[in-house]
C-alpha cells in the first residue's frame, strides 16, 4: 500500500491557536473591565490601581498556582485556606511569643505546609480516597491546629519581618510594589516553567487527561500525584507567609473560604475542573479578575453589604457568560 493513499493528517493548524482562545478571551475581558472602571470612577485609571490588585492578591496568586497543579491532575485541594491561617499563626507565635528569627521561622512554616500536603497526597494516592474528602479533613485539621495555638490574633513585631513587609519597591511614575508581589510573580514564572518544560509538569497534564492511561503508559503516577499535593501545600504555606507579611499578624480565622477564591480563580482562568486542560497564565488572569471585581466594589462605595454580594455575583456572572459565549462563537 503506497503512502499517498493514507490520509490521516487533520487540519490542526487552527486548533493550535484555539487552545489559547479561552485565555485570550479572558485577557480581553479583563482589559475591558478595567476600561469600564476607568471611565466610571475617578482616580481609577492609574497604574497603581493595577499594581494594588497585585499587592492585595499576591497570596491568592500563590495559592492559585498550587491549586492549578492540583486541578490539572483532576484533583482538588480544600485545605489551602486553612493552611494559610495555620502558617500565619505559626509564623506569628514563633516570632512574637518565642522570639524566633524569620530565617528560621519561614523555612519551618514552608516545611509544615509541604509536609501536610505530602501527607494528604499519600492518603489520596495510596488509599485511593477522594481528594475532596481528604483535603476537607486537612482543612479541619489545619484550622483546628490554629485554634489550639490560640484563638486571639497575634501581632508580628519582629523588626526584619516588619521592614520587609513595609518595603515599597518603587517603580517609575510614583508607583510601587510590595515584596510579596515579587515573590508571587517569581512563583508564577517558575511554576509555568515547570508545567511546560519539565517532565513533572507534563506528567501532571497526562494524569489529568487520563490517570489510568498515564499509569499504563508507564508514567510515575504515584510520585506525580503526591508531588502535586505537596506543591499545593508548599504554595499554601508560602501564601500564608505572604499573608502574614501583608497583615503582619497571625490569626486562626484568616483566609476563611479562601480555597473557594483560589478554585474560582483557576476555573475562571479556563482550567477544566476535570483536569488535563488549562494554563497558568489563565490562573493569573483569574486572580486579577477576582481582584479587580473587589476593587470596583470598593470604588463603587455606596453599596450596602447585601448589594455588595449581589454586585460581585453579577459581575462574575457577566464575566463568565461573556467569556463562554465569545469562546464558543469563535471556535
Amino acid at each position, binding site marked *: *500500500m*503506497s*503512502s499517498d*493513499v*493514507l*490520509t*490521516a*493528517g*487533520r*487540519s*490542526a*493548524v487552527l*486548533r*493550535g491557536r484555539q*487552545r489559547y482562545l479561552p485565555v485570550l478571551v479572558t485577557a480581553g475581558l479583563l482589559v475591558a473591565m478595567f476600561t469600564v472602571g476607568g471611565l466610571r470612577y475617578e482616580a481609577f485609571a492609574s497604574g497603581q490601581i493595577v499594581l494594588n490588585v497585585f499587592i492585595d492578591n499576591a497570596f491568592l496568586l500563590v495559592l492559585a498556582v498550587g491549586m492549578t497543579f492540583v486541578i490539572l491532575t483532576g484533583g482538588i485541594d480544600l485545605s489551602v485556606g486553612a493552611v494559610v491561617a495555620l502558617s500565619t499563626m505559626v509564623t506569628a507565635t514563633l516570632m512574637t511569643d518565642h522570639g524566633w528569627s524569620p530565617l528560621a521561622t519561614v523555612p519551618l512554616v514552608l516545611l509544615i505546609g509541604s509536609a501536610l500536603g505530602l501527607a494528604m497526597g499519600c492518603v489520596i494516592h495510596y488509599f485511593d480516597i477522594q481528594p475532596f474528602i481528604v483535603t476537607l479533613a486537612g482543612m479541619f485539621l489545619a484550622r483546628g491546629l490554629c485554634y489550639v495555638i490560640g484563638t486571639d490574633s497575634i501581632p508580628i513585631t519582629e523588626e526584619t519581618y516588619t521592614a520587609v513587609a513595609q518595603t515599597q519597591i518603587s517603580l517609575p511614575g510614583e508607583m510601587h510594589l510590595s515584596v510579596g508581589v515579587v515573590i508571587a510573580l517569581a512563583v508564577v514564572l517558575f511554576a509555568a516553567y515547570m508545567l*511546560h*518544560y*519539565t*517532565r513533572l509538569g*507534563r*506528567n501532571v*497534564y*497526562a494524569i*489529568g*487527561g*487520563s490517570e*489510568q*492511561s*498515564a*499509569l*499504563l*503508559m*508507564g*508514567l*510515575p503516577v504515584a510520585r506525580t500525584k503526591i508531588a502535586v499535593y505537596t506543591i499545593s501545600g508548599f504554595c499554601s504555606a508560602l501564601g500564608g507567609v505572604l499573608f502574614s507579611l501583608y497583615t503582619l499578624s497571625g490569626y486562626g480565622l484568616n483566609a476563611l473560604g479562601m480555597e473557594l477564591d483560589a478554585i474560582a480563580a483557576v476555573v475562571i482562568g479556563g482550567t477544566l475542573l476535570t483536569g*488535563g*486542560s488549562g494554563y497558568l497564565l489563565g490562573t493569573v488572569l483569574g486572580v486579577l479578575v477576582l481582584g479587580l471585581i473587589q476593587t470596583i466594589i470598593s470604588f463603587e462605595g455606596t453599596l450596602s453589604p447585601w448589594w455588595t454580594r449581589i454586585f460581585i455575583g453579577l459581575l462574575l456572572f457577566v464575566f463568565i457568560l461573556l467569556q463562554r459565549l465569545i469562546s464558543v462563537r469563535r471556535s
Partner: protein
Amino acid sequence: MDDAPAPILRMRGICKEFPGVRALSDVDFRLLPGEVHALMGENGAGKSTLIKVLTGVHAVDGGEITLDGAPVSFSGPLAAQQAGISTVYQEVNLCPNLSVAENILIGREPRRLGRIRWKEVRRRAAGLLARLELDVDVSAPLSSCSLAVQQMVAIARAVDVSARVLILDEPTSSLDAGEVEQLFRVMRRLKAEGIAILFVSHFLDQIYEIADRMTILRDGRLVGEYLTSELGQVELVGKMIGKELKDLETLENAPKDIAAAERSRPFAEARSLGRPGSVEPFTLTIHEGEVVGLAGLLGSGRTEIARLLFGADHATTGELSVGGTPVTLRTPRAATNHGIAFCSENRRAEGLIPDLSVRENIILALQAARGWARPIPRRTQDELVDKYIDALKIRPADPDRPVKNLSGGNQQKVLLARWLIVEPKLLILDEPTRGIDVGAKAEIQRLVVELSDGGMAVLFISAELEEVLRLSHKVGVLRDRRLVAELPNDDHLTTGVLMETIASGGRS
C-alpha cells in the same frame, strides 16, 4: 522444542482471581528472544489479564515470573518498562488532551538540563510515525485523531523504546490492511534484532502471517503451546473453543439478492449531505432490508458519514430524508426517534458507561427511547438481556457485573446488544466486530443477515474488507473523505477490486 534458546521471559503456575471470576488458573507461558509469539483464545479467555499480570498492572495471586532467569515482580507498567518490557494494552491507553508527539514521547522526552526540547520532541515523533508511514500533524491534540491513528500512535510509542520484550494486545483490531502490513514490517525488523514479541489478535490470517509460535488459553487455563507451522487453522479454532467448529464458513456462500434489496423502499436518502472539514457532500440511499457496506482506508471518512446520518454531528450542506420525509437531525436523540441506531467504533469513549452493569448498558438505549417515566419492567429486561448474552456469548454471563470488568471483546458485544434490542429501522454499525473472536464474529454476521432479511436497513463499516463483502448488498467506497464509488456486490466484486477502487479514487 527443547533445543530452543533459553526463554527471556517465563511465567509458571500463574493464578489470578477477580471477585467472582477466576481469570487465570495455573497458566505457564514462555517467550523466546527473537520470536513473535501469539497468545490465542476466545473473548474472556484471559489473554489481557495474563499481560496485565505480567506487567504489574494486576498483582498475581500465585505463580512466578522470571525475566532472564531471575524472578521478578513488577509494581506497575513503569517498573516493567524499566526492565525492558514495552506494552501496548488492548484499549488505546493514551492521553487525549496531549499532542500526538507528546503521547509518543512523554516520560522520555529529550531534554537539556532538565528542560524539555520541544522542537526535538516533535521532530522525533514525526520521525517515528514516518517509520510507520503515517503522516499526521504531531502537534495536533490526540483527541482530534481517529481511533486507528490513535492505535498507531500507541504502537509508535511502544516500538520507540529499545525494549527486549514488546507486547501488543490486539493492536490491529481497528487497523486496515495497509497499516497492518506496515506494523508487520516493523515487527519483523524488531524480531530480527532479537526482540521477543508477544502478539494478540483475533485475525487468524494475521497470526499465520507473522507468528512463529502460539500459546492457547481457554477459560483462563492453558491449552498448550504450539508452533504455528504445525497447527492448522481449523485445529487452532477447535482448541480455542474446545469443540469442533463446523459452520464458520457457511455464511460466505449465503446467496444475496441484490436486486431485491434495490427494489424495496428506500429508508434513508442522503442527498449531497456533507460537513466541511469532515466529509465532502455525498449521496447515498439505503433501502429497507439492505446492507450497505462502507470501505475505505484509515481516516477516509467512514465514521464521519455514520455520524452525519445519526445526527451526532450536524450536516451543514445537503439534505436527508428518512422514510420519505425530509428531516434535520440535530441530536442523536432525534435520530433514534426516527428509528436510526448507531453503534460507535470507539466503545470506550463513545459507547459504554463503565460503572454500570452489563444489564444497564444493554437496556440503556431502549430505556432512553422510552423516556424515564416508562421503565422497562424487570421481567422484560431479563428476557432481553438473557437473550443477547446467550446469542452473542457474552462471558461471564452475569448481567449484574460492571461492564468495565469485562474483557474487551465482551464489552464490544454488550455495545452491540444495546442497539440490537432497540430494533431500529436503520442500524449503523461502525466496526462492530472489533476485537471479537472468530466464533462470535460469525454469530454477529449471521445476526446482521437475519436482521436485514427481516427488513432492517444496515450500514456496515469495517476495516476488514472480506467482512464487508460477505455481508453487503452494495459497497460505498471512500477516499480522502469523499464517497468515490458505489459498487453493487455482485460476483465481480472482490477485495482486489475494492482495493483498486480505493487506490484509484474511483477513476477507472
